[in-house]
Each structure stands twice: as C-alpha cells, then as structure tokens.
C-alpha cells in the first residue's frame, strides 16, 4: 500500500486528523487504566477466606436477661440449634468471622526478645512481632467453619477457658510463616506481653474480618476462649439448600427457648451475604468502571465512524477519479482502512504515554499499583480492532463509489 497519498491527504485535514488522534490517545490511556482498576477489584473480591462459605449461616443473638451466665446461655442455645433439622454443626463466636468487619486483633511476638525489641524500637515494624486477627469460639469452631488443619491438632476440651487468656492457639499458615520464617512453627510459644501461648495447630488459610493489605490479610489465630459476652454470633453449618429454612427455624427456636433477647433480622443471614456486603462497594464500582470503559469505547467508535463518513462524502469525487484510472474496490477499501490504522496507531503511541502519566497520577491519590506493561499491547490491539470495525462501514461505502462519479461535477 502506498502511504504517500494518505499522508498528503491527512496533511490537508490536520485539525480533524489531530482531534481523531487525540481521541484515540485519550481512549487508550483511560481504558487501559480503567481495565486495570477492574482487574484489581476483581482480584480483591475473589479473595478466598478458607472457610466453607456456601454452607454457613449466622444468627446474631444478644441476651438481655439480667444476671445470667452467658456461657450457660450459649451452651443451651447451641443445643437447641443443633436440634434444628438440617444443622450439621453449630458454634458461637463473639462477633468475628472473616469479612464481617468486627475485628479483634492483638499484638503477638515470636518470643519475649522480639517484644523487647519492639518496645525499644517503639514500633512492631521490623521486630518480628505481628498483629493478627484473633478469633474465639466454642468447641468445634475449626470443623464447623470447615477450616483445613494442615499440622497439629484441633483444641481439646481442657484447652478452653471462659476467663483470662488461653495457653494454646491455632494459627493460620501465613501467621506461622510470618512469626517463624523458615522454622517449624508448630509447638512454638508465642508471647503476647503477659503470657506464652503455644501453637498446637496450623490451618491452611483463615482470612481476617477486615482486610488491611495482601501481605497480612491471612494473619489470624484462633484461641480456645469461650465468647465472654451476652451478645454472640451463632454460626450454623448446613447443606447450601437448607440455609434459608434453618435461619428461620433457628431464630424461632432461640426465641422459643428464651424470648428475652435481641435477634437482628438484618444480620440474620447466610455467610455469602456477609461476603457480598463486605465487597458491596467494590462490586458497585466494578459495574461503574465497566460501564465507563464501554461508554468510552462506544463514543470513540461513533466518532471514528462519523468522521470517516464525512471524509467519504467529501472525497466521493476523488474516489471516483481513482476508480476511473484503475484503482480496484479493494484499493479504495484498503486506503480507508490503512488511513484509520495510521491515525489510531499514532493515537495509541501517544495514549501509552498518557496511560502511564494517568497511572502515576492515580497512584498518588488512590491505592493503585503500577500499570503492568502487558496492558499496553492489549490496549493497542483493542483500539486498532475498534478503529477497523468503526471504519468498515464508511470504507465499504467508499469502495462502492462507481468510477462514473468522476465524470460528474459536484
């Protein structure tokens, strides 16, 4: 394909050609970043929790009975809940589950020396101490949540305490590695400032109630402490199909047992609802980002088609002349396609630069990583494809111009 005639034509339409280049560049820059943000959010909302999400449901219950022993109340409630048809197991926890936001965390060190180091540094940064999320619960928590025990053992009945701190704990694999890098964590004694806590088990993965940063999101530990307060979350494990019925029957059962309690209907829900609520903002944002990316591409395609249409109309006569002196339909078609390819190509080159500038700007204001390089060739391909698609109609129309037009005057 001879490029010279295309270039000399474009030189005569500098303003429109420039605007088209600018449009392609802006679209390339924005769409690359938007798609990157979508990918980030998708990754965020698909984080695994380590528990049997589709089989769990929760009922929050706060007893308002005066002078009651909370642990006796929980035991009685759990016995009643286990009697509900379809409930495979049930435990009580105080508030916390992965992604339900109410987090209790505690500073914990691999040894007393590490704590002293932290005190000296006045920060736990670099001392080897960690800040894991702490989960408590009644016996059977590991099994009910469906946590995957990879080393050691589950808690024994004698491990459980109702007051004070327990002497043993089960930690997530991530926490084990962070506290004792390169060492066997099982059997080690962690120090929390007052007590030593021995690691008796390690679970594969157990996400925090509140995400912080990917490096520490799986730092959690379970200790065998019975929920101390009157307000607890009852966690029920059932077959997925039983959840709705069990939630209803379980709440009714609890109220029948003792009506002097508050059960928030809004928070009586399946675990999947807890998860969806946690990522609500992200899913909304993904929808919005997707809509704007599509909108941008659509508007750009419209612009390319509109301009190409204009040019075809404007050049009808010269197209006719070219046909009359021997150009084939294919030549005309390729002429417009090549022209579009060139314009969009220049736009893409400029757009890549813009994409990085925009990314740098976004990194300053929002929690966003650097744009990976492979987004650029992908963005280029998408834009070139879009340009070709958008110009196809007008180009075909141009190719259909009969040579006889050359003999007519406009």
């Amino acid at each position, binding site marked *: 394909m001879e490029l010279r005639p295309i270039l000399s034509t474009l030189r005569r*339409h500098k*303003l*429109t050609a420039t*605007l*088209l280049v*600018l*449009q392609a560049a*802006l*679209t390339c820059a*924005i769409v690359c970043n*938007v798609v990157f943000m979508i990918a980030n959010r998708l990754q965020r909302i698909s984080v695994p929790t380590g528990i049997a999400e589709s089989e769990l449901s929760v009922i929050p219950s706060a007893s308002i009975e005066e002078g009651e022993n909370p642990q006796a109340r929980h035991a009685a409630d759990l016995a009643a809940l286990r009697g509900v048809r379809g409930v495979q197991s049930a435990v009580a926890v105080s508030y916390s589950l992965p992604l339900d936001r109410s987090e*209790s*965390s505690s*500073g914990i*060190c691999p040894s007393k020396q590490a*704590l002293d180091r*932290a*005190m000296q540094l*006045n*920060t*736990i*940064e670099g001392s080897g*101490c960690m*800040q894991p999320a702490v989960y408590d619960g009644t016996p059977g928590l590991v099994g009910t949540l469906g946590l995957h025990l990879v080393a050691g053992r589950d808690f024994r009945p004698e491990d459980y305490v109702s007051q004070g701190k327990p002497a043993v704990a089960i930690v997530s694999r991530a926490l084990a590695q962070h506290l004792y890098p390169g060492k066997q964590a099982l059997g080690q004694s962690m120090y929390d*400032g007052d007590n030593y806590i021995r690691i008796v088990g390690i679970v594969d993965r157990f996400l925090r109630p509140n995400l912080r940063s990917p490096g520490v999101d799986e730092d959690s530990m379970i200790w065998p402490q019975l929920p*101390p*307060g009157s*307000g607890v979350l009852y966690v029920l494990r059932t077959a997925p199909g039983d959840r709705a019925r069990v939630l209803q029957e379980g709440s009714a059962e609890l109220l029948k047992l003792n009506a002097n309690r*508050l059960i928030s209907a809004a928070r009586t829900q399946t675990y999947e609802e807890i998860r969806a609520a946690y990522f*609500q*903002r992200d899913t*909304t*944002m993904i929808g*919005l*980002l997707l809509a*704007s990316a599509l*909108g*941008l591409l659509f*508007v*750009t395609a*419209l*612009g390319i088609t*509109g*301009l190409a249409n*204009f*040019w075809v*109309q*404007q050049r009808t006569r010269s197209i006719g002349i070219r046909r009359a002196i021997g150009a084939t339909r294919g030549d005309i078609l390729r002429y417009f396609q090549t022209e579009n390819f060139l314009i969009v190509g220049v736009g893409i080159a400029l757009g890549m630069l813009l994409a990085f500038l925009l990314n740098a700007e976004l990194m300053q*204001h*929002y*929690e966003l990583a650097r744009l990976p390089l492979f987004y650029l060739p992908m963005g280029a391909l998408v834009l070139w494809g879009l340009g070709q698609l958008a110009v196809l109609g007008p180009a075909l129309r141009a190719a259909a111009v009969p040579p006889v037009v050359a003999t007519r005057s406009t």
Partner: protein
Amino acid sequence: MFRYYLDLAWRRCRQGPSMVLLLVLTMAIGIASCMTALTIFGALSGEPLPGISPYLHVVTMDARQAVDANNNDYDKPDAYLNLTDAKALVDAQRARQQVALAQSYTLVGRPDGKQSDQVQGLLAHGPLLAMLGVPLRHGRPWTAEEQAAQAPVVVIDSELAQKLFGTEDAVGRSVSLGSGSFRVVGVSAPWKPRTQFLDVQRNQGNVLGQPEQFFVPAQAALAAGVGPLTAGECGKGAAVVSFQSAEVDKCRWLEVWVALDTPATVAAYDRFVAGYADAQHAAGRFVYPPQVALYGVPSWMSMNHVVPDDVGLNLALAGAFLLLCLVNVAGLLAARFLRRQADVTIRRALGASRRDVFAQHLVETGVLGLIGGALALPLTWLGLWIVRMQPVAYADAAHFSVSAFAALLLLSLVVGLVVGILPAWRVCRQPPAMQIKLG
C-alpha cells in the same frame, strides 16, 4: 445579528439531522455522566452543618496513660479523651463554645415498658444543642446546673416522642434509659448533619449523617449504665471491650469539639490545649509527648476518609468521559464546518469579517450544546436514579437539585462553546479567494 446567527444555526441543524443527533447525543451523554458524578460529589463535599461546621474544631492529642508500644493500630494522636480530660477542657470555657460528645445507640422506652425503640443519640458534656444548632420544638436544653448535678434529664427528637407518647410535646414526661428514669426537658426537631463528622470512629461506613434521636448529659447517662456505642481506646487491664458499656473510666471515649471564629482564636486555643496537655505529660499522666493538634471539619473528614475515595474516582472518570466526548464532538464539528466552506466563502466575499464567521459558528455550537444539555437532563435524572438503586452508603445523596439544574445548563453552554472554538477558528481562517476557487 445574534438572531440571524440563531436562525442560520437552526437551518443548518435541519440540513443534516442524523449528524446533529449524533453531536448532541454525544454531548448529552458526556454532560449527564459528569452531572451525575458532580451532584453526588457536591452533596458529599459541602459543609455538614451549614453556617456552623466551618467554625468547629476537634481536639486531638496523644493522651495515652500507659506505655503502649505493642500497638501498630496507633499511628497518630486521635480525638478520644477520657472523661476527666474532656471535662477539664470543656469546663475551662476557653473557646466560644465547647462540648465533649460520644455516639451512643441504646434502648429508649416509656417507663411503663409499653413502647421502646433502639435509637441513636449523643452523650454530651457541654451545651451541645446550642453549639451544633439542633433546633428545639418544645422545652429547653439542659442547664449547666442540671449537668453539674448529674440530673437525669434528656432531650429527645419529635419522632421518638411521637413513637413513645403519641404526641410531639413530650416535655415533662419520663423515659427509661438504661437503668434510670430520665425527665424529658426538651423535644428537638429531627436532626442530622448532612455528612458524618462527629465521632467518625464509631460511625465508620456512614458517609451521610445519621439522625440523632436523643441527647443526654454524659455523666447522668453513665450513672444509669448507658455508655457510648463502643468503649473507645481502653488501657490494658480494662474490661473486655463490649458494645454500649458504661464501664469506660479506663477508656478514652469522648471527642472535644470547640467553636472558634478566627485564626487568632484557633491559635490561642491551640496554645491553651497544648499547655494543658504538657502539664499532664509533665505530671506523668500522659506518658507520651502530647502532640496537640486542632482540626477543622473538612480536614478532619478527609483525614478520616469519611467520603470514600470512590466518589472522587467517579468524578475523575466522568470528567475524562466528558473530555473524550468533547474531543469527539470537536472533530465532528470541524469536519462539518469545513464541508460548508462554500457558504463561508460567500459570506466572506460579501464582507463578513473573520470575527463574524467565528461568532456565527460559535452561536451554532452553543445552540447544539444547549440542546445537548436539554437531552442531558433526563439522562442525569436516570443516572441519579441508577445510583440511588445501588446499595452504597451515599445513595441518598443522589438527588437532583435546582442548583444542579443551573450547573447543568451552564455546563452544556460551556461545553458547546469549548468544542466550537477550534473548528470555528479553523473555518474562519480560510482566505476567501481560495474558497471561491474551491467552490
């Protein structure tokens, strides 16, 4: 002349209706997306309490009373003070107005137990209602004497009064609050700040202000077992953190807000608080250097990320979208104008100056912009409706307002003119002779 240009613009619009439709629709979509984001941004970034919040400042200092090295949640001094310090600052009366407050959420009922409701309210020490401008419908706020005597008095809002007693004027009646019986001394109109700025720690996730339905002196409430929503920052060895506990004597749980009118008074108050805190540090009560700082409402809100980053991101996206639409329209307009070079030539040959041609084309694009704006109106309404359907914390802010309408009209006119400048400039630069030859 302007009318003639309008007439010309109208004639031209009728000549290429499909192209005109494409132009105005592109502008309309760009304007509508921008307006939707702007409306939400505007609703969330204004003053939370118009006329009042610009003068409010919150006191922050490192008031920890025990070594707390093993706590990486603590990165800078926060606003929570314990009752002793909060009272000392409020009772010193060194600002125009001052109050210590904490968010609470508790059961308020009739003494006979027949009606009750779990509602949100504020525990306060100081003239809360006067300072925040909470309007009273009946009765009066509590007095300094009642507060000092820890008298069980309360102000409830008219909705709670209606629910409990079936009448708004509940002054003189009693309500049960915790274990106590509190006399209603005032009934306020329903009140909430536009955006959340009081006790943001206990209002995480709320972007918009929530209705506060009762106001009660903090010490009287504590005596009746009614505490803040969460215990706040408690030292080691304190009771296990639990919701709504009144056992907060080892905790920092109150925010001190002060009304200060001028930079000079702010500086003076800052010095006063720093003096107080340094004295506590010297006396060994505060174990860390206090690092006192006062924050105005806007900086406090942005520091605590009350308005989610997403809102700013939305606005940026919508702005980028509008920009792209503008470039698009400018390109189409340039092509459209240049196709009509023959008309321009004749006008130029007949004596129209470049300025005339420029003005004529700008009028045309201005008209197109306004048509785009008119189309953007229903689209904006649709966009806001979609936002309201989303389960986001700021969904209620997505309402079309008169000022938004004015902004939309202005925006569309500006858009129309901006997109027209380049093409109009290009077309008026054509030398007449050249044009005639071409024609």
